[in-house]
């Protein structure tokens, strides 16, 4: 019984671990080579990282706004900080759009 369960376990482990090596196409998280599907819906690691950075920047903008409204920041400081944060957010959005444009071109070329 123990031998049988061990063999089943071994087979399952081999199946799970070797699946990415045997799979046709690309592993999760990379752009499809065949161009199938909507490229902009595919999240690459770089895209996911930029999305996380964008969410973090939005949180910072909200934090600064809350600090101002709860009386911790003067109006002048708030306006300066808010402008900086929004410029940084736009920079991230530009990078995201550039990445999406690239992925669209790759999928069209494929």
């Amino acid at each position, binding site marked *: 019984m123990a*031998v049988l369960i061990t063999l089943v376990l071994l087979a399952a482990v081999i199946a*799970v671990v070797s699946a990415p090596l045997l799979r046709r196409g*690309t592993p999760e998280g990379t752009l499809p080579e065949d161009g199938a599907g909507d490229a902009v*819906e595919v999240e690459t690691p770089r895209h*996911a990282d930029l999305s996380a950075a964008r969410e973090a920047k939005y949180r910072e*903008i909200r934090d600064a706004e809350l600090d101002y409204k709860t009386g*911790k*920041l003067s109006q002048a400081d708030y306006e300066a*900080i808010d402008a900086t944060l929004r410029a940084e957010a*736009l920079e991230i959005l530009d990078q995201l759009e550039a990445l999406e444009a690239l992925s669209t071109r790759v999928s069209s070329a494929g």
Partner: protein
Amino acid sequence: MAQLGAACLVLALAVCAYGIGASLYGVRKGRPEFSESGRRSVYALAGILTVAFAVLEVAFLRNDFSFNTVADTSSLTTPTFYKAAAVWSSQEGSLLLWAWLLSLWSSLVLFLTRKRLRDVSAYATAILLGFGAFFISLMVFYATPFATTNPAPADGVGLDPLLRHPSMMIHPPMLYSGYTLCIVPLAFGMGALLARKVDADWIRAIRRFALAAWLFLGIGIMLGARWSYAELGWGGYWGWDAVENASLMPWLTGTAFLHSLMIQEKRGMLKVWNVSLVLATGTLAIMGTFLVRSGVLSSIHAFGGATLGVPFVTLIGVLILCSIYLVSSRRDMLRSEHRLDSLLSRESIFLANNLVLVGLCFVIFWGTYFPLISEALTGHESSVGPPWFDRYTVPLALVLVLLSGIGPVIAWRRATLSNARRNFVIPLAFGAITLVALLATGVSAGKPLAIAMFCCAAFVFGSISQEYWRGVRVRRASSGEPAPLALMALVKRNRRRYGGYIVHIGMAVLFVGVAASSSFQHASELSLSPGQSTKVGAYTVRYVHPTATITSKEDAAHTGSTLSLGAVLDVTKGGHHVATLRPSEGFYDSGDPTQGSVGHLIGGQAVSHVSMDAGVTRDVWSAIAPDIDTPRLKRVIEIGNKTIPFVRPDEGTIAVAVMAREYMKSPPPAQFHLIVSPLVMWIWIGGLIVFGGGLIAMWPAPSAVRSRVSVRARNRAARDLARA
């Protein structure tokens, strides 16, 4: 089934070796399918170790004494509740629990980051599997949980009576979850250094896991304190014991990291500091495990042998050397992207908080390892006690509580002095009113440190209350919601900020409990005979009559003791009945035949079962140490040993019953330990508040759980939002 368990361990080791190789090959050669295969090795490892753990758990529940570890740590009379927990009371079982939990948490973090941080997570996978391989190797080569004896003994030795406490069911898994979760940030920190991607991305990916490590470790520490208070019979919840300290140190550095990571996220600063903190936290977690399992320092919490010292010291040495090499070789890319805008900013307060936390950790580290350091330097082992720890940690704790009230009212980046002055009025008023009230009533006379802690805690209450009130006011102004709804919406929308504030409140409450219970405690240790009474603080405690139960089934504490002797105590205050306490001490079967056929039934470790009347204002706590070494009782055992054969344990139990009857007939004076401590319950309540706040801060924000929409559409909308 032992063969299945052993086969699982060998298979797990092979999977670790393959996964490390595949992950490193994938990331070095740019072959993501190999990295993906390496990541899946971690999932496979979790599956294999789940089977192995289930095999061992079933062996315990089925009393399969052919397993050496079952025979050593369980018995037929061990209550089922404790049999399930006995798995991790043994060296081998706890190693398996460690490796299993590590595999589960590693699987979770790698699944959640599967579409992010490709290079960093490939290195992290290899490191996590490296830790898995280390612990599995210990089980394969040093301490296997699946070793068997043939023929199997008829009964086991039984679980250490000290561990027969409900919190022991969850204390070790919580503590080990904390320790293993500490390895996740370490692996990703090292991964980021190896991949040379040291921006805030890796921090964002593991922030929730760092918080979970902090949360689990904190719950484990609190449960350990509760166990110490309710089980160990010395009346305290924290004794600066080596193993207690070992669990506190990674919690302190983890707390520092949870604050300083925000500075890296927001400002790109403190990169060296943050990565050093996660490496230190992970290393301290391994050192904590080492202390519990190695027995290198004497501790009431240490339950291991001395066989694992060399492998653990080697691992710790490798970790420290690798950490130093990685941080120093990547120091150029770890430069801060910004400088502090102002000394009056939340960043500055967080920096101060970090220095205090790391200072606390250093003090505790020095005190804990002082016996080893002194032995290495002088050849003589000497140790430091609680007064030494108190001398240094109390002032630092005061500063820490104060900072937890200052931080929330200071803005990020820069705050103006006029705003700061206005924001400090209410918190300072809270502190001042508390000071005046304490001085006027005179309740804290002669206890300046306790007074300082109460005032600092009041300052924190004022600061956080003001934050909530202002936040709700802002929310109401924009939404027109009623106050309770506005409060809920405010917390929901800013979970990290307001969850963190709740944690600060909880810590203040906890420290109030610690300050009050340690400064205003009344304790008495004395011998009483039935009918006698004594005064403890404002309470009178009278020893009404003794109690005795025999056989594990009748044990009132449900811990499986053969004989339990105790007392009924009547507690009164000003002539009014307050509580009836029933402390007892359990005597357990030693399984040692040299103690005789009756002697061994009660010859095991005697364990105190504390009885207390706990309330929000004070605890009345009692423990008893009955005297069973009287000539009359010893004679019963001697006669039983001579006349009753080993093969008749039922007759042995009759002899124990005779002994219990003799004890009840003419009870000798018993030794009592009685304590009246104010506000102890607030330590546990504070802990619950802390963990409630931690859960709120950890819970995914609405933006992270919302349904996915077209990425481009979201970006367009986001751009509009940012420009608005």
